[in-house]
């Protein structure tokens, strides 16, 4: 390795982009050792941080795009460094020079043009809500806006989750409606990919849509939307009360408005989605719901709650190819089966998607089922 000269202007610039904690890192390695990549093909996040601290080339390298923004490192960092922000800011800075990986460009293009990352048409966004008979949000009639993520609009598997959630909400007497095609992607992934500009315009347009429709409370189907509305939309002047679907289901059951009665007779384990658990500390609500379902035997996996294993789909990885043998989701199904689960339940359309994909790679595809919490609840009604 040739000698290098620190280029601190780069570090200063990164800080401008939001890497505020950069200099706090004391190079303990906890992050690298806590990262899910450490189980497969390690991502040396500590080294990236070190390079960034000195502004040396390499901080922007390929490894930067491996990060799923799962926060496994961040919750452990002894110096309290907001590592996900470091990753995001670094991507944002180099994104301005156009260095975003090819595979992410089409998703970004689709978001910019059609308001969703799935190359779907904006006009088709509401096709499923219409066929499911879900009304448009009306502040006079509805307490909640149901924000179902872009995925159910364009992906069949995800659509099943949304249908199930709607069934559950109806059974529980929740008055809710949806927005029309004026709703766009929440922008969570877009921001993590480093496209701050697009994120800002999505945020502003959704903020305007919320405002126009008179939205006060939101039920988010996806933890990613939940996280973004709750923690990042304040910048766009949005002041709504945000709930994740699992929290609503827990409350409905607790209040006796929802009465799961059909027996499931299955051993279920819960996969904590990163953006529900680590990022937002919601660990108990889904477990409480599962424990209220008749016939469910609950088993915890080895990696659970704060230590949950990322599915691999966050931080833009949904749109990037991961080699077989390196996919976290491929590790998750055997872990679930090892604790005796016949159902891997979770609460995020990305996770469901990743796991369904991995399930197809199993020797026996039916060895385990992948379900969203709402689907399991719907089955008991």
């Amino acid at each position: 390795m040739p000698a290098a000269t620190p280029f601190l202007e780069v570090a200063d610039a990164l800080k401008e982009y939001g890497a505020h904690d950069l200099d706090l890192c004391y190079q303990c390695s906890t992050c690298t050792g806590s990262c899910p990549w450490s189980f497969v093909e390690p991502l040396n996040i500590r080294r990236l941080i070190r390079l960034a601290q000195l502004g040396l080339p390499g901080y922007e390298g390929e490894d930067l795009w491996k990060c799923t923004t799962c926060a496994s490192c961040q919750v452990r960092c002894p110096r309290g460094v907001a590592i996900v922000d470091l990753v995001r800011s670094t991507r944002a800075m180099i994104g301005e020079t156009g260095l975003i990986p090819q595979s992410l460009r089409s998703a970004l293009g689709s978001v910019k043009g059609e308001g969703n990352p799935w190359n779907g048409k904006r006009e088709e966004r509401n096709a499923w809500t219409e066929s499911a008979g879900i009304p448009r949000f009306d502040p006079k009639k509805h307490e909640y806006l149901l924000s179902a993520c872009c995925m159910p609009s364009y992906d069949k598997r995800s659509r099943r989750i949304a249908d199930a959630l709607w069934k559950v909400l109806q059974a529980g007497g929740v008055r809710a409606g949806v927005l029309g095609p004026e709703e766009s992607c929440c922008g969570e992934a877009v921001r993590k990919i480093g496209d701050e500009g697009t994120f800002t315009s999505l945020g502003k347009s959704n903020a305007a849509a919320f405002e126009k429709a008179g939205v006060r409370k939101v039920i988010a189907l996806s933890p990613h939307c939940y996280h973004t509305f709750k923690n990042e939309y304040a910048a766009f002047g949005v002041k709504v009360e945000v709930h994740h679907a699992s929290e609503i289901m827990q409350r409905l059951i607790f209040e006796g408005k929802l009465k799961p009665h059909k027996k499931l007779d299955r051993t279920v384990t819960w996969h904590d989605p990163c953006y529900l658990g680590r990022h937002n500390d919601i660990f108990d609500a889904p477990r409480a719901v599962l424990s209220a379902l008749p016939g469910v035997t609950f088993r915890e996996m080895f990696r659970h709650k704060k230590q949950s294993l990322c599915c691999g789909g966050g931080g833009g990885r949904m749109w990037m190819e991961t080699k077989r043998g390196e996919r976290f989701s491929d590790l998750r199904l055997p872990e679930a089966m090892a604790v005796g689960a016949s159902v891997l339940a979770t609460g995020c359309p990305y996770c469901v998607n990743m796991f369904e994909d991995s399930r197809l790679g199993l020797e026996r595809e039916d060895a385990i089922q992948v379900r969203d919490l709402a689907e399991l609840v719907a089955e008991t009604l």
Partner: protein
Amino acid sequence: MPYKIGVYVCHCGTNIAGMVNVEEVADFARGIPGVTLSRTYKFMCSDPGQALLQEDIRKNGLDAVVVAACSPLMHERTFRRAAQEAGLNPFLVQIANIREQCSWVTEGKGAATEKAKALVAAAVRRAREHQPLEMRRVEITPSALVVGGGIAGIQAALDLADAGVQVVLVEREPSIGGHMAMFDKTFPTLDCAACILTPKMVAAGSHPNIKLMTWSEVEEVSGFVGNFKVKIRRKAGYVDHDKCTGCGLCIEKCPYKADSEFEQGLAKRKAIYLPFAQAVPNKPIIDKNACAYLKNGKCRVCVKFCEAAAIDFTQQDRVEEVTVGTIVLATGFQAMDGRRIPELGYGRLPGVYSALEFERLNNAAGPTNGVIQTRDGRAPRSVAILHCTGSRDENHHRYCSRVCCMYALKYAHLLREKLPEARVYNFYIDMRCFGKGYEEFYKRLQEEGVRFVRGKGAQVWGGAEWKAMVPAAAVPEGLEDHQLVVVAEDSLLQQVLHVPVDMVVLTPAFEPRFDAEEVGRRFLVSRGADGFFLEQHPKLAPVSTTNEGVFIAGACQGPKDIPDTVAQGSAAASKALSLITRKEIEIEATTAHVQDELCSGCRTCIGLCPYNAITFDEARKRAAVNDALCKGCGTCVAACPSSAILARHFGDRQIFSEIEGLLSL
């Protein structure tokens, strides 16, 4: 009312003069009504500086002085003493802090000078309202209380007792010794802990000047420096130690067992027990939660065998009261519960040990007679010692625990010595080997073939779990189900390591004792942000506290090793001794005073006084402040609904004049 005031503006080298135009401030002061002279000087606290002030007092008959200089915490005493020597009542000295509160924190020379003027104006106006006050003197009871019988408390008690001071040593547990009694060897010299500690324990137990009260706790402290009244709860131990000969027959015969606290739960002890063989006092107590007779009235085996008839089931807790002149707090630390970092598997994986467990495992007098083995009795072939468990960590404790690097080295050595075949890894962030002979010890361990990995141990998994969690390629060859896998990045290699081991030892952070807050409140000792007791000054008064007459020593003040602990024990003893040998001390003159004619007898103040200094005269239906107890905190002054209580030196007029002065520019 003083009207011949001298003002002295100090340069403090460039500390003040570099930011404040001192001449301008002095000129300004000259124009304030009441000021007869105003000067500047390079260092007012120096001898010539003080002489200048004294000469002015004598020659010009000054009736008050204002010194515009550093914080009163630094030099108020100095100037008060100088004034007194020159014949001026010390309470007629007022300090204007134009350093910490002005030159050091104000940006721009102009602004700093203006602020200094305002502070001087305030001080002058206040000084005009000052009254001469008399300091009072009280006698000091020539005895001391030492709380906590770890090595810090033992050292302090012995030093005091050897100097002829009567000492009461209170220890919560059945024996003195503290943490050190649990160790086999001590770093870096590897001398045997028992060999150096036991003689001191015995000396403390038998010293004619030490009254040892084990199995006891301080319940209440009242009074003040020189005359603390202390109530001590002597917990019932159901054995009359005056009769007991320590023969141990009862222990041998007792049929009931409980987990041994001293052995960290790695072994059992009897219901009637000594915590460890060398315990001082070497007489047992009965654990009422384990004793069958005390629980359900059956057994009394011990009674049958005790020839001295020392067992006394009728014993009750009793409270003893002592009066002492000074107090040394030496309550030590506790180790963090490793379960707070679930990623490291402590409490879940049987192969993961806490440091204190390892100390007992390695101790010749411990549960395995010093044989290092896993819970299922295997000799470990490889051991990982993980540093910084909860230390230097924003999620747990921000501070470095200071001794874990060193005892981790000690463990590595003991492992290499006892199990030469075993592989030993130390996972560290930085090696902190700061003490005398410590770095040398580190090098010695490298020579002994210990592997040092620079990178924090991030995760620990059971072998069986690991196989179910990771791709087959990531399973180290030959990994057995009962083994453990440590995941860490070696930051020097820049590579993630999966290290299979048989045993993991954690180094849990030092923590303040669980009841440190309560103990601090009881002894009126404040705590720092880290929760440990706070010294009066980190450099210059390391064992004093803001409660005069109360000193702190050892790990209750912050993490430290035995050498530092012993040094502090001796330091606290010497501080206590220097107080006692003075025979009497001056106490606050700035006390509160109830104006009889205004007091409505409502008693509001009585419950509020944190020092129990206010009594109620039933006959006259008036409250009265006991000058000797009052610390002048002002609580009662603010609370009195009739405004009947005056705070000497902090009266309304004095404070309002000061504020007016501040706003006068």
